Structure formats: structure tokens, C-alpha cells
């Protein structure tokens, strides 16, 4: 190797440091730009500077973002009341009573606050059932619109001053004194009125019921000599025929009737007895929705149907001109009634004495009195007398009345000639109102003596003769109010506290303190004679009336024409008393699915004929409803329309009770008052009005509707239904879904899991499940309200419901079905209700999509929400096939960290004030804005029951844990329990051949099963095309499997059953015992 070196220049050869340095640079001399930059000292910032800035800004942002929201503190008791254990609920037996509404209840209180109403199973009337109104009644206690003190001439006054002033004035009255009241069903109140009468001898009582049963009372008086409504035992009836009578929704005693009715509709393999129910009605009521045969008639045809029935059953009578479809069903109904003598009930809801007379005659002919209908247990309420009320108004206008005391009625709103009532009232020199709020009537009254809420009151109630119940306070009066009877006693010079007045009245009659305490504990007791009235109870079960004149008069009446109007009372707002109860306002009508409003219901044909539209989803989703003006008896009301099948052409149905101008909360001034449309003349108010004029008066009305209507053109297996005969022949008939998935091999092949063994953990411990019997769900919505109250579900208001942002965890879906060939105008559709809540899928689609694990599965099969984790992406709600998840769009309950974000544009109904927040259930988290929520299966109740069992060191028993919807349901359509307990009722229900999973196709493995609906009607052949809803007929496919599997449903085969059997072995089955432990406080007093 040579040492020779090649070089290009001397620099390189010498290789000095200068050269080495410059060699590293690409360019021989410095670039001008670099020099320039160096001179300007704008040397590029280094990597380290960048990181410094980055680190600083990150830290600054973190510090700034970690501000805490203020903590609100709870203050403990200084002296703890003996009966109150923080965190433990106390139950007190009481009675919900408001006018003619009655329900025996248990009041759940927490730390001295009533927060929930449960049914009282000891009651022989309501038997543990509740209604939407009873459930929501607790909300009215915390109503900000309540009067907070007595007033004289609009100014605050003390009670002693009130007593002095009013007594002085009453003493000076030399004209009649009238107590204008709703039906009083409290014996002690009657006694207090008697005491008042004794002091002021010119006193008389006028009873006014806005929706009166006056016509029926009149007919009963003529027929039986009893001015009363007899009791009906629907549980004893095999055939029920109802003509325009909504006995499950709003007629006389709906809770009692629903409980009894359901007993005849609960069908299982061992008991296939089922009543047959015919309904003829001008509008669609929930009663009609449950009927086996429902026929729509015109309001004017009520009489004609009665005449026709009379002709068919008793014989004789005039000619009834009915449509063939109706006439045919009348014949069928008459045949059924005749074959069930003494075991049938015919009820008529009309206020027409003639129709009621025929009803009495027919029932009497059938031998129903004394069997299914009984005057010896007559209802004591419904004493409203339309004639006496008309007389009173005349007298007031003639200056014949010196003083008027108004109790729990609001004639300035509900009386058809309200103007004339108000004018008369202004003539009366002394007027007192006991109203709990400044309503339309009390505006014109001199003295306001506000009554307590029933949860703050003492009372006794005799809803039915001999069946008594007590009302006891569960909280001290929130405001400076006093009970009406106590005020009457004070005015008559007896300074009794009403509580001791009642105690004194009953202690002796019941036989001592112990018996009184027991009665108070139970809430109900029986008396041999009714109330304090020593006269024997009515026994007028013998018909002594005459039907002939009624037949003639009804035959004449039927010949009216024109558009007809049917006014009715719905099962939430009633006659208008509940207008300020936001929970009831937001409960959608069971059929129309509209809330916060009343509306003119018209049939599709009527709408088409007049060119009206109500903005159906498919045709004109943004159009809104047309508004029509309805003119009757010289008065006009403008109402939005809703198109509903099940009505005759040219019939319009409208609910009363809306259009209150002073209900309290301005959000509740919704709807239109239709009482003025009634004609206040004749013996009884007729709620069916003929010769009405209608005209389109506008459009684009925004209706708060929770279920849009539209035609479904495909075959979705959502409602599975069958007929009774088919069920008897094959228990899984009609259960298309169940049949399809009863083939285990098929299921195993098609529903392959990527995680084998994933579900097995659910076979250990508890696995909660629910079943809903579509046959006994009557659609009354008691469950909806019960759920909302129990779970602090926010009320959002009319506008937000219109925007479909309602929060109800539970809803009742309503579907129509009909046969286009026989019923082209949709006059007689069948209706199905389907309660819908979170299905707690074991394969839940909502869970895997949540990015933050807020929606997850518990080891007990519950699909649960961790509100704290939820960031509100709404992905889970989108991916829920049942659409049961609800998002907190706004801050409804004042839980937000953004204080004062309701200052601007408050579209939503807010319950953020301290008073209305008192009803919140402390066991249930109040959700903040921006989080998702949904049914939890009332997990708080499950936890309580589990803890009770744990404390007692025993396994949980079936029925110890109940959900709010289950306890609220009057018909026990909802069953809940542990699917791993083979002794439990739910275990059996899940294996019932009628049980099916909704949307079983998508294999979400829901924990809720529905039981097939059964209608007791003839098989309808050859009518396959059903327009509104069409179940898929899988007869050919399902037949084999169905028969083969007999007692098992599609889910659990034999092996499955045996599995569970082992685990449940230790559990002894025991009857439901909701009572003893619950309100075990023997003293039972509130405070």
C-alpha cells in the first residue's frame, strides 16, 4: 500500500482546524441570510424553548380547569324525632280523597317528608291499586301556587281574626246561607256541617259536581227509590257491556273497577276463564280500548243502543236505527248478556235519565242486582245535583242568598253559565272560599280560608257504605292553612282540632283506643252502619221503575242530525281539579298520546271530508294541527284537531278540564275550556251535544304529542295477540315471536356469541326480570306517574314535549289494528297498549357504544347508568332499539353547576325551586344536565330489599323487591322478580307459553318479556290485511314447535329450567307481604 496522498488544495493537505470547521458546512462562506439573522438576533428558538412553553401552558390550563363547584351541606337534626331514622322510609296509611276521587293509600315519608304514594292492600275497595291521579297527588302538596295564609279582601289575615270577622258577618246574615261543595264523603265533615247548621239555621248544602252523575241518580231514585250509585262487582261478571261508560278511566270508581276487571282478564293455562267485554262508545276511552268487541257510535245513538239492547233482552221497545256493524254487535252483546244472567253487568255512562232507566231495567231483568250490582254498598259520593245548582245560580242573581261558602268546587270555571254564576256571586255579601289556591272562583270571593292538602289533614272517608278509611297527616301543614271542617267547627263556635274531633267520633264506636289505633294503622275499617247515619243501609235492589216512557223518549231523541260533540273527562286532569299538577299534565292521554292540552278528536273520514290535517309524520311532519271552531249552544271554542280512528263520521270528542285561566302555575294554563258548550238546562247536563257547527279556524298548531301516528306498512312483531279460543287450543297461539325462537337448535345456530360463556355469570345470584301482561294492562298510566315520582323524573313542559324531549322513563305505546275490508273508515279499530321501559338487555347495544363506560351491566343483569361518568354523547340512546333512554337536555331540577343558566329564555318547565324539590326521592340521584338516564328497575328498592334480607340473615324472598310501576299498577299487569329463583312468579312468567321478547330478532336478550294479548272474541277468518298494524302469521312455521314445547317458552328449555331449579331450592315460596313491615309504626301518627 502506498503512502501517496491525493489532495486538491493546500487547505486540505494541511487539514488545519479552520478547514475542518468549514468542511462541515455545506457552503464555503456563511450564507448572507444566516449572517443577517445572527445580526438581528433572531436565532430560531430551540426545541427546549418549545417544550418549556408547552409545559407551562399545559400546567396553566390544568390549574385553571380544576376549580371545584361549591359544596352544599346538609344539616343534621339537633333533636332527632323518635320515629325518624335518616335514610329509612316510614309508611303511613291514609286515603287520597279529592271530591269523588278516592284511593286508600300508604304514604311513604322520608325524614318527615311525604314523597310517594303506594296502594293500600288492606282496602276492600281499591285493593292496593292506584291511579295516575293518586300517584301524582303528592306533587300537589309541594305546589307553589297554594295559598299560604287566609285572606280577607285580598289582604293577609290571621285565623282568629278570620273567625271573629266571619262569625260576626254570618250572624248578621238574614238570607239563606249556602255551603256550595263537591260531594262530601266524610262522615265527620258531614257532622261538622251539621254543627255549622245548628249554629246558623238558615244554612243548606248544595252539592255540585262539575261532571255530575245527576241523570243516573235521578233514574236510580225512580227505579229503586235510592238516590245513589250502587256498587258494581266486575270481578263477578262474565259478560260486561258498557255503553259510553269509561269505567276503567274516569267513571265512579275506576281504580276499584280496574282491579276487579283485571281479575276476569288474567288468563293462564290453569285458569282460562275470561270475561267478555262489549263496548259501544262515541269516543275512544281506555275502557273501549280493552274491550273484546268495541263499536263506535254517534253520541246521539247511546239511547238507540240502549233501546236495542232493551228490545233484545227484555223485549218490546221502539225501533233503533243502527248501522249494521253496530246492530250486529248489539245482538251479540244481548245474546251474551242473556246467557250470563246474574253474572253480567250493563253500565251506561250517559247522564241521560232515560238511558239510565233502561240500563236499570235491563240489569234488573238479568237479575244482576244483588249479584254483580248492589245498592247495599252504594257509593256515598256523586251527590251533585244539576237542578239544585241551576236554582242556586238563579237565587244568587235574585239576591236571595246572604252567604256562600265554597268548598273544593270551581263553578266560575266549570259551570256552563259561568258568567251568570260570577254575577250572582258578586251579589252575595258574604262569600268564603276554602280553595287551596286563588282559582277562577275565589277571585270573586271576599274571604279565602285555604284548606290543607290531604297529606296534611285528618279525615275519615266513607266512599262506599260501610267501608271506611282514615286520612292522617304525614307532615305538618307547610303553610298557614286550616282544614275546611275545622274552619266550619270554629265558625260554629266549637274550637276542636279536627283530628281529635274524628278520634272522639270513632273511638267509642270502634270500641277503644286500641281499635282506633289499629284502624289508623290499617287505614281502613268496616262499619255495620254507614258513617254516623244510623239509618239502615239501602237495600233497594228491586226495580220498581217503568221503562216504557224511556224507550219512547229515547227513540225520539235519536233522530237528530248534524255534527255531534262528545265531551268527556279524561283520566288525568279530570274535571279540571288537577290542572296545576304538572305530573298529570305531562302524562299523555292513553289513546291520543297528547299531553298538556285538549283537542278536538275527529275520525280520519271527518278530517278528509273537511280537508283538515293534524300533521302526520309521514305526510306533513312539520305542518302542525289545524284549528277548528266548535259552536254549540251559542258558544264557540277554537280547538286544535287530532285525527284518531275509532270515531264515527261527524263526531267530535273533546276533554273537559282544560283551559283553566288561573290554575296556579302559568305553564298549566293550557287547552281550552269547553264547559261553556254544555247546555245548562233540563234535569241533567248532557255531555253529548248534537247539532254542532264546526269550521276551520286556522292551522299550524303545535301539539305536545309523545307518539306520532302514521301507518306502518310492514310486518313487525311488536304486539302479539290471539283469541281466547285459540289460546285454549294452543297456549302459544299468536305468540309469533315465541314460536319462532322456541326452536333451541335454530337459536343456537343463529345467535352465535363471540364471547362464549359471557352470559353465564348471570345465572348466579340475582338476575332481575320483568314481565308485562298485555292482556291486563289497561293503559291507565298509573305506572307512568308512579315511575316519575319514584325516580325524580323531570317534567319538561308543553313546549319541550312538543319538541319530543320528554323524560318519562316509562311510556305506554298504543297501536291500532283493523280490517280494511270490513272497516274501511277506521271506525272500529282494535287497540293495544304496550308499556315500554328499559328492557335491561343482557346483550345491551347501549353498553358497548358508550365511550366512557357510563352505561354498563351489573352482575344482577341490570343495565345501569353511572351518571357521574356520563359525558352525554347520546350514542347509547341512538343505539337503543327500544328508544327508552332519556337525555337531560336542560337543567330541569337545579342540579347544574351553571348557576343561573335558566335566566334567559326558559323554554323548559323547571322544578328547581326549593318547595317543588321537596318531593324528590333522596334515594335516587337527581340527574344533572347533559347526562343520559333511563329505567333502573328501581334499583334503590332492590338494594333496600337486599339489605333487609341481609340484616335478617336470610335469602331474599320473591316479591320483597318491587318496582314503582309494579306497585302503582292497579291490575298487576307487571310482574317483577329474580329470574334465578325458580320459585318466583317471574320465573314462571318467563316460561309461560305467552311470553315473548320484543325484538327477539336482534338478540339483545332483554330481561323484559311481554305476555301475548288475548281477546275473547270469535276467530276472524280471511281478514289478513290489516292496515295500521299487521302481525305476521307464522302459523305454518310455529305450529309444530309450539305444540312440542308445551309449557316452555322459546327461551328456556328443560335443561335450563332444571338449572334454575337447583338454585332456587332453598327459597320457600310465600305470599306477598308488602304490608306489615312497611308501615309497622303502630302509633302511626305524623307530626
Amino acid at each position: 500500500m502506498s503512502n501517496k496522498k491525493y489532495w486538491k488544495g493546500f487547505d486540505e493537505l494541511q487539514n488545519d482546524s479552520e478547514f475542518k470547521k468549514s468542511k462541515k458546512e455545506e457552503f464555503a462562506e456563511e450564507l448572507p441570510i444566516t449572517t443577517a439573522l445572527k445580526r438581528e438576533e433572531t436565532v430560531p428558538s430551540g426545541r427546549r424553548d418549545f417544550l418549556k412553553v408547552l409545559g407551562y401552558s399545559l400546567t396553566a390550563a390544568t390549574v385553571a380547569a380544576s376549580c371545584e363547584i361549591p359544596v352544599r351541606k346538609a344539616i343534621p337534626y339537633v333533636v332527632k324525632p323518635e320515629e325518624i331514622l335518616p335514610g329509612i322510609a316510614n309508611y303511613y296509611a291514609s286515603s287520597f280523597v279529592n271530591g269523588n276521587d278516592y284511593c286508600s293509600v300508604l304514604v311513604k315519608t322520608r325524614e318527615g317528608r311525604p314523597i310517594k304514594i303506594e296502594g293500600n292492600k288492606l282496602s276492600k275497595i281499591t285493593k292496593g291499586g292506584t291511579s295516575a291521579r293518586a300517584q301524582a297527588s303528592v306533587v300537589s302538596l309541594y305546589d307553589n301556587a297554594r295559598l299560604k295564609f287566609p285572606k280577607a279582601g285580598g289582604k293577609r289575615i290571621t285565623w282568629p281574626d278570620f273567625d271573629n270577622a266571619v262569625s260576626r258577618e254570618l250572624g248578621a246574615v238574614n238570607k239563606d246561607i249556602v255551603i256550595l261543595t263537591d260531594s262530601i264523603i266524610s262522615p265527620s265533615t258531614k257532622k261538622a256541617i251539621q254543627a255549622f247548621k245548628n249554629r246558623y239555621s238558615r244554612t243548606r248544602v248544595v252539592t255540585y259536581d262539575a261532571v255530575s252523575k245527576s241523570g243516573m241518580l235521578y233514574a236510580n231514585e225512580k227505579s229503586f227509590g235510592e238516590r245513589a250509585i250502587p256498587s258494581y262487582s266486575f270481578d263477578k261478571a262474565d259478560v260486561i257491556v258498557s255503553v259510553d261508560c269509561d269505567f276503567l278511566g274516569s267513571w265512579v270508581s275506576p281504580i276499584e273497577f280496574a282491579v276487579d276487571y283485571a281479575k276476569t282478564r288474567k288468563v293462564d293455562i290453569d285458569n282460562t276463564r275470561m270475561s267478555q267485554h262489549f263496548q259501544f262508545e262515541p269516543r275512544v276511552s281506555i275502557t273501549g280500548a280493552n274491550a273484546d268487541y268495541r263499536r263506535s257510535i254517534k253520541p246521539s245513538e247511546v239511547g238507540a243502543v240502549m233501546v236495542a239492547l232493551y228490545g233484545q233482552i227484555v223485549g218490546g221497545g221502539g225501533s233503533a236505527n243502527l248501522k249494521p256493524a253496530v246492530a250486529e254487535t248489539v245482538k251479540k252483546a244481548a245474546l251474551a248478556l242473556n246467557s250470563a244472567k246474574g253474572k253480567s253487568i250493563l253500565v251506561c255512562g250517559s247522564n241521560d235519565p232515560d238511558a239510565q232507566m233502561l240500563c236499570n231495567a235491563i240489569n234488573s231483568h238479568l237479575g244482576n242486582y244483588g249479584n254483580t250490582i248492589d245498592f247495599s254498598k252504594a257509593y256515598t259520593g256523586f251527590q251533585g245535583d244539576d237542578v239544585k245548582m241551576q236554582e242556586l245560580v238563579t237565587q244568587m242573581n235574585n239576591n236571595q242568598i246572604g252567604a256562600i261558602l265554597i268548598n273544593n268546587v270551581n263553578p266560575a270555571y266549570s259551570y256552563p253559565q259561568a258568567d251568570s254564576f260570577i254575577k250572582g256571586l258578586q251579589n252575595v255579601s258574604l262569600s268564603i272560599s276554602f280553595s287551596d289556591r286563588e282559582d277562577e272562583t275565589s277571585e270573586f270571593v271576599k274571604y279565602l280560608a285555604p284548606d290543607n292538602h290531604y297529606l296534611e289533614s285528618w279525615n275519615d272517608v266513607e266512599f262506599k257504605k260501610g267501608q271506611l278509611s282514615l286520612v292522617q297527616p304525614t307532615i305538618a301543614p307547610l303553610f298557614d292553612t286550616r282544614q275546611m271542617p275545622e274552619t266550619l267547627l270554629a265558625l260554629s263556635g266549637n274550637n276542636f282540632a279536627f283530628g281529635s274531633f274524628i278520634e272522639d267520633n270513632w273511638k267509642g264506636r270502634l270500641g277503644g283506643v286500641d281499635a282506633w289505633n289499629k284502624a289508623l294503622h290499617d287505614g281502613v275499617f268496616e262499619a255495620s252502619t254507614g258513617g254516623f247515619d244510623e239509618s239502615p243501609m239501602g237495600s233497594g235492589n228491586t226495580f220498581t221503575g217503568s221503562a216504557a216512557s224511556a224507550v219512547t223518549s229515547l227513540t225520539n231523541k235519536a233522530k237528530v242530525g248534524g255534527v255531534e260533540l262528545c265531551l268527556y273527562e279524561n283520566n288525568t286532569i279530570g274535571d279540571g281539579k288537577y290542572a296545576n299538577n304538572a305530573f298529570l299534565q305531562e302524562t299523555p292521554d292513553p289513546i291520543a298520546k297528547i299531553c298538556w292540552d285538549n283537542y278536538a278528536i275527529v275520525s280520519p273520514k271527518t278530517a278528509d271530508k273537511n280537508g283538515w290535517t293534524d300533521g302526520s309524520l309521514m305526510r306533513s311532519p312539520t305542518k302542525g294541527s289545524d284549528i277548528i271552531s266548535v259552536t254549540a249552544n251559542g258558544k264557540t271554542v277554537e280547538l286544535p284537531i287530532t285525527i284518531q280512528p275509532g270515531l264515527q263520521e261527524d263526531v267530535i270528542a273533546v276533554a273537559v278540564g282544560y283551559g283553566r285561566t288561573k290554575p296556579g302555575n302559568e305553564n298549566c294554563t293550557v287547552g281550552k275550556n269547553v264547559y261553556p258548550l254544555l247546555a245548562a238546562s233540563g234535569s241533567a247536563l248532557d255531555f253529548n251535544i248534537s247539532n254542532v257547527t264546526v269550521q276551520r279556524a286556522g292551522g299550524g298548531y303545535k301539539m305536545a304529542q309523545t307518539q306520532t301516528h302514521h301507518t306502518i306498512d310492514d310486518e313487525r312483531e311488536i304486539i302479539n295477540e290471539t283469541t281466547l279460543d285459540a289460546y285454549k287450543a294452543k297456549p302459544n297461539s299468536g305468540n309469533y315471536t315465541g314460536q319462532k325462537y322456541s326452536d333451541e337448535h335454530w337459536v343456537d345456530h343463529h345467535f352465535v356469541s363471540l364471547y362464549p360463556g359471557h352470559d353465564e355469570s348471570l345465572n348466579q345470584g340475582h338476575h332481575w326480570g320483568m314481565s308485562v301482561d298485555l292482556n291486563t294492562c289497561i293503559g291507565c298510566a298509573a305506572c307512568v306517574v308512579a315511575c316519575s315520582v319514584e325516580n325524580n323524573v323531570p317534567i319538561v313542559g308543553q313546549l319541550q314535549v312538543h319538541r319530543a324531549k320528554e323524560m318519562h322513563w316509562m311510556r305506554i305505546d298504543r297501536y291500532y289494528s283493523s280490517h280494511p275490508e270490513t272497516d274501511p273508515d277506521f271506525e272500529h279499530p282494535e287497540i293495544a297498549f304496550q308499556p315500554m321501559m328499559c328492557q335491561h338487555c343482557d346483550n345491551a347495544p347501549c353498553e358497548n357504544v358508550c365511550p366512557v363506560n357510563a352505561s354498563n351491566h351489573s352482575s344482577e343483569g341490570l343495565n345501569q347508568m353511572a351518571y357521574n361518568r356520563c359525558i352525554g354523547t347520546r350514542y347509547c340512546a341512538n343505539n337503543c332499539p327500544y328508544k327508552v333512554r332519556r337525555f337531560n337536555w336542560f337543567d330541569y331540577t337545579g342540579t347544574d353547576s351553571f348557576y343561573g343558566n335558566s335566566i334567559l329564555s326558559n323554554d323548559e318547565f323547571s322544578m328547581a325551586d326549593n318547595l317543588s324539590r321537596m318531593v324528590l326521592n333522596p334515594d335516587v340521584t337527581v340527574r344533572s344536565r347533559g347526562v343520559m338516564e333511563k329505567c333502573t328497575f328501581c334499583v334503590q328498592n332492590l338494594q333496600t330489599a337486599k339489605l333487609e334480607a341481609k340484616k335478617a340473615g336470610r335469602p331474599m324472598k320473591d316479591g320483597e323487591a318491587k318496582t314503582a310501576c309494579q306497585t302503582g299498577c292497579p291490575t298487576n299487569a307487571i310482574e317483577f322478580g329474580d329470574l334465578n329463583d325458580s320459585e318466583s312468579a317471574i320465573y314462571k312468567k318467563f316460561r309461560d307459553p305467552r311470553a315473548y321478547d320484543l325484538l327477539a330478532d336482534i338478540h339483545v336478550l332483554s330481561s323484559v318479556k311481554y305476555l301475548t294479548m288475548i281477546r275473547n272474541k270469535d276467530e276472524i277468518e280471511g281478514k289478513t290485511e290489516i292496515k295500521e298494524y299487521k302481525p305476521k302469521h307464522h302459523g305454518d312455521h310455529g305450529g309444530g314447535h309450539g305444540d312440542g314445547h308445551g309449557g316452555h317458552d322459546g327461551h328456556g328449555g328443560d335443561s335450563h329450567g332444571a338449572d334454575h331449579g337447583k338454585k332456587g331450592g332453598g327459597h320457600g315460596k310465600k305470599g306477598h307481604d308488602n304490608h306489615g313491615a312497611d308501615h309497622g309504626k303502630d302509633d302511626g301518627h305524623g307530626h
Partner: protein
Amino acid sequence: MSNYASPVRDPLITGNKTYSDITEDIIGPVEKAPGLLFVLALMTSATVAGIGVCAILWTIWKGIGVWGENKTIGWAWDITNFVWWVGIGHAGTLISAILLLFRQKWRTGVNRSAEAMTIFAVVCAGIFPLIHMGRIWDAMFIFPYWPNTRGPLWPNFNSPLLWDVFAISTYLTVSLLFWYTGLVPDMATIRDRAKGFRRRIYSALSFGWQGTARQWQRFESISLVLAGISTPLVLSVHSVVSFDFATSVIPGWHTTIFPPYFVAGAIFSGFAMVLTLMLVARKIMHLEDYITLNHIESMNKVILMTGSIVGVAYLTELFMAWYSGSVYEQGAFYYRALGPYWWSYAAMMTCNVISPQIFWFKKMRRSIAVTFIMSIFINIGMWFERFVIIGTSLATDYIPSSWLYYQPTWVEIFIFFGTLGIFMTLFLIFCKFAPVVAVAEVKSILKTSGNQYLEKQREIDRATQPYYEGRSVSGGGAGSIAGAHKMKDKEN
């Protein structure tokens, strides 16, 4: 190495540009004071953006209830806008990454602004998943950060929404890097020409770029590496976005065709948006020599291709719904086409499938007016496509009792137009402060695709290869190229 000039390749740079011309043409506008038109445009878009920001703040202050979404339709304009904006960004990535790998020289004229558009579109897109949250102040729950302050629970890695977070943030990061890497030499060019305060700013922005061979070598390497990373992103980002729907159980969402269909749709809408912007920028900033009709035609071809893919996807969906035998699937597509939202389906079909078919005609492809109108059409159509998928599938799903209609409120409308304002504002600011065409990259193809060089080359070719003579007659001839294009540009 001699440059072989393909006789069928038209020049990509016209107007006899020299390197200096290019610098002057592109850097010039950045250095000049903003014109009246620019100021007006910026003020308008900033105002619109401001209104949008107010609407966003109102939503956060008051709650999601101020939107028209409801119990059944939990996503509507928010996620529609999100998917639409993400899709818009795709053209940038495709041009910078895939076309770079395929050595498509025509990309140099448009890649800078397309990449900028990607960034701004992703910024706009990113707004929606954030503000659609009910509790945006807890948005960090979605990140798997450590130390985990939330106990043993982590985000749900099964949720496609979480995948979205990763996909979009990766996409934004890579796009940002790619875009800025390309900008560095050009920033340095501005710096070199600037003085005073501007110089300090651009000096910081150019990261000490000196144009040394080593820097160029690293620049080339990093461009290639980033292109390699970006290429799968072009396909993956919108696939992941489509998983939000494809992995659900909702009929109309639950569709395996979604990933390719979404990617094609994204490229489709992205190119449309590039065209919308470029046609305006080209005119205003006089870049006709750099963004030629050839560029426009190339992009129109991509549009025709992807539009047809999307059209086939629509038809496939309909066929599958029928073929599946599932009532829910059939129902979803029946009501999608003929239900209450028929008009949005019709808008989608018209804008996305039917109207782009006119690009089969060369004349249409090369017409600036037609291209501009079509690009707007496609933007609208693709917005409707997302709305049809997201909104109308939810409107009519399994349980008919919950079927509903959705209408946006003014807040949602303002937010959407607000993001258009934000996008335009960012783009205008970008145009003013950075070269809208990649100077360095255009210079790199000048010698091979500049018209004067092509002409020279072809003259040499003609002299040495006599058989070449005949080709000039058929239109692609070298001699007339520059002149012909100048004439065409005048026509337009």
C-alpha cells in the same frame, strides 16, 4: 439524464415561468398589503364565525336542549356536520400522501391549499364531537390518560366513539406535520425576502431553514415517511368514522359496506371542496399558470370515479335491504327513500350520483363554470348523504311508537354556518400569511413540466426523432401548447 417529455402530458406550469417568476407570483401576494376584496371576505367570514361561536357558547351555557334533537333522534346536524367536515379533509391527505407516493406531479399545484384545507376541516369537524357532548367540561373522560383519576375504570375501548377520538387526533397530528413540513422551505423564502418584524416572525416559523443539502435530504425523507403514515390514514380515518354507525344495531346504520363507501364519499366531497376553494383562489390570486385546466380535469376525473363508487354503494344498500328479508332493514330504506325525509334522499341522489355523470364529457370536465357549480352540488349532496344516514335512520327504526321527525333550531343552523365561517377565516388568514401554492415543490417540477422547458425538449425531440412530426397534428403537439392554453384561459 435526459428528460423525456411524454407527448400526451400537457405542461403543468404555463406562462414561461422562471424560478424567480414563481417566487414572485406566489410569495408576492403574501408581502403585499391586503386588498379590499380580501378584507371584505375576511370580515364577512369572521362575522359568520363569530355568530357560530356565540351559538356554540349558548349551547354550552344552556344545554343541548337548544338544539332540535329529541328523544328518538339523538344525533342530527351535529354528527352530520362532523362527518361532513372530516370527509372534506380527505382530499388534502389523498393529494399529499397517495399522489406523492404515486409521483403524480400535478399534485404540487394544489397540495398546499388542499393540505391546509384538511387541517381547517378537521378543526371544524373536531368542534362537533366536543360540543355535542352534554357535559363538555368532562370531555377529558374520553381520554385514557395516566395517572387515571377515575379509579380502576378506563374508557370503553369497545366503543367506536373512542376509536374516533384516536383516529381523528392521529389524523390531525399527521396532517399538521405533513402540511407544516412542506411549509418550512417556503416560510424560509418569505423570511429571506422580509424585513424587520415580519422577518422575526417568519424566521421563527421557518425553524432555521437554510436550504442546505442535508436539510433538503431530511425534508425529502420526512415527506416520504409522513406520506407512508398518511396513506393508511386516508383509508382508516373515515373507516373508523363509519364504524360509529356500522357497529350499531340501528337499521340503516348497521351496514358492512360502510368503510369503503365512507372513504369514497370522503374523497368525493374533499375534491369537491378543493375545487370550490381553488377555483376562487386561482382567480383572485392569479394562479392560472400554476393551477391549470389540467389540474381541474384531473380532479374532476377523481370526482367522477368516487361519485360512481358512492352511487353503487347506495344501490347496493337498497338491494341488500330487500335481499336481507328483515322488515326493519326494509322499513328503514323504504322510509329513507319514501318517508318523511324523502326530499333529503332525493337531494342526495341528485347531487351525488346523477349530476356528476356529466363529467363523462371532456368539455364539462374542462369547464370552470360547470366544475364550480358541480363542486357546490357535491358539497350539498354529501352533506345530505350524512344527514340521510344519521338522521333518517334514527327517525324510523325498530319501534314505530318512537318514530319522529327532526328539525334543526336556529342554534344548530348558526353553528353549522359558523364552522363554514371558521373554515373560511382560517383559510383566508392562511392565504394571506403563507404561500398558497407550494413554491419549493412547484419549482421542483418546473424543469420537467414547465411549458417552455417542455417546448424546448420537444423541439430537440423533433429534431432528433423525425417520426415525431406527425403527433403534433393530433392536438398534443408541442409547438402550440402554450398558446393554446393561453387562449383557453381567456375563454374561461
